């Protein structure tokens, strides 16, 4: 089975948000196309972002469209890689290899960290 089977979730400590990172839990779903370089890139990028900004309060599902074609219809997937922010609302979509970090953070309603270097530690 390829890397992105349904619930390849990160450790799920979402019920216990880390102190100092208040906020709602994030439900994210990333659609990729098998193990193409672009897919791998997207997975790596999004994982980095999540670990950096949402540690402990996110769930990331990685779905391979080849394996789960039915889901593409439900989630209206055309372009891949595609990230869907299912929660918190509003629903947002990102397409591409997730390399534009600024845009993603903005879309996820997360403020860029560089201003608060201490929060990262």
């Amino acid at each position, binding site marked *: 089975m390829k890397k992105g089977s349904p619930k390849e979730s990160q450790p799920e400590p979402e019920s216990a948000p880390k102190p100092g990172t208040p906020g709602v839990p994030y439900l994210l779903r990333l659609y990729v196309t098998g193990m193409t370089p672009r897919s791998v890139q997207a997975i790596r990028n999004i994982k980095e972002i999540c670990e950096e900004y949402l540690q402990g309060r996110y769930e990331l599902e990685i779905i391979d*469209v080849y394996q789960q*074609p*039915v889901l593409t219809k439900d989630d209206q997937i055309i372009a*891949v890689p*595609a990230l869907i922010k299912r929660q918190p609302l509003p629903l*947002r*979509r990102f397409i*591409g290899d997730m390399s*534009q970090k600024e845009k993603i953070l903005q879309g996820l309603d997360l403020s860029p960290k560089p201003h608060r270097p201490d929060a990262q530690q």
Partner: protein
Amino acid sequence: MTTAQRRPSHVTSPSITKSPTAIAGLDEITSGGLPKGRPTLICGGPGCGKTLLATEFIARGATQLGEAGVMMIFEENEDELIRNVASLGFDLKQLIKSKKLIIDHIHLDRGELQETGQYDLEGLFVRLNHAIDSLGAKRVVLDTIEALFGGLPNETILRSELHRLLQWLKQKGVTAIITGERGDTGHLTRNGLEEYVADCVIVLDHRTVEQITTRWLRIVKYRGSLHGTNEYPFLIGHTGISVLPITSLALTYPALSERISTGVPRLDAMLGGKGYYRGSSILVTGGAGTGKTSLASAFVQAACQHGDSTLYYSFEESPQQIIRNMASIGIKLMPWITQKRLQIHAVRPSQQGLELHLLEIQEKIRKLKPQVVVVDPITNLDGLGNWQEVNSMFTRLIDYLKTEQITTLLTSLTSAKDTEQTTETAISSLIDSWILLRNLEHSGERNRGLYVLKSRGMAHSNQIREFQLSDQGIKLLDVYVGSGEVYTGASRLVQEARDAAEVAAQSDLLSRLRCSVQQKRSAAAAKIAIVQSELEAELNELDHSIKQLEMRARVSTLNADRMSRQRIAEAESRPGKAHPSRKKADHPAPVIST
């Protein structure tokens, strides 16, 4: 399914197989359908019928040709599409339930979408592939894929992905329809889809002339195949799209030799004694009030009596009006309507465009299967288009009726300023029998005249007849032709009386002349008798005198003989004086004879 694949029956080129659309008329102008296993682009402005054409291709493929289909729709959602085409008789829900169709609505909301680097459309491919494979679909519609340009950023990626998609569809071997919005100047589509679809491009259009809109279809290209190049009008009717190819005028209809009565015995007589040919087209032209409808109704009645099912298409009067008016001249149509042998269908010409009229007539005919059709009058359609469109519509109508072997009577109103033969020149070549009704104005009254302008394939009278409508029906009378003029009505009566008087006078004169000849002859005979008797009297007289003279002459000769004999005797008695005495004897004789 394999039979469906083999179905393209009139494929023109062996290298291209075709996938029939089963859309009325479209397969004819594409010589068999769309290119099988290749994408076809259908483009046109908003509301010109792209989606419907595409949907019909899928629906007919599934229901009539056994080919399952996949529709990817970008603009409407599934329910909307199902509802929209349900009114045209396509039950997509049923098709979905019976696994003949998958509709996949693709929703793109640019507002909730962020581009974060390179992407591709593999998601679309996967969705499509999954749908195709799960049904074994042969037909695919993407309507309209241009929505991608509005819904996704980065045109460069989209273009290359589109190119890849169309290649992939070809590899997949599905017959696809891609729709696209009409572009601005010089481009068929807004985003240049025609660059990707090289095999077949069909353009739809609709134009409004005089508040009446007509839809048009044109095949811009069809690689490797013959196709009609004209712009064909098409309709969206109760049963979907019908393309109306004008070029189906193949002139292959069989000619029937059976005859059918005109409903007017004298007119039958004028047409070689038997009436019209069955399956022929008859045109009755004439000015206002010349009796076109009456002549048509007489024909309808005769046809119904003969047992033919008849369709009367009226563009002028309501059925009730026709029934009432015709009853007044002794033509009873009502019984035939109750017996369902006659249907009168009245439509306002301005109710719809020409093409819709044509389609409606064709549909009615298909449903009722009549043997006789009357259209009264076709000229009322004139206002619905320019003369070319109108002529083309008439041509196709008549052609259709001929192909169906329906005896057709069309009436046509000629306006006062036209001569009766100008307006119909365009369709006259399709008309087999042409009857002309004319108003004949003379000495303060108007009468109707009728003559047969042409009637193919039969001996027909060249005479003008007077056409009379009475409560006994239609009568044709010989017109009075005297001194180079045609007389009808009262002037005919006057002329008849005048002529009768003249004849009487002439016969009087004749007998008088005869009498005088007789008299002359007898007078002459009498004279001859007198002359004869005079002649005879004179001759008698002459005879008498001749006889007397002859008698006298004879008597005197006798005397002379006697005298000479006496002298000789005297001379013998005195010798020597014999010679001179003889001379003397000769001399007196003539004296005596005188």
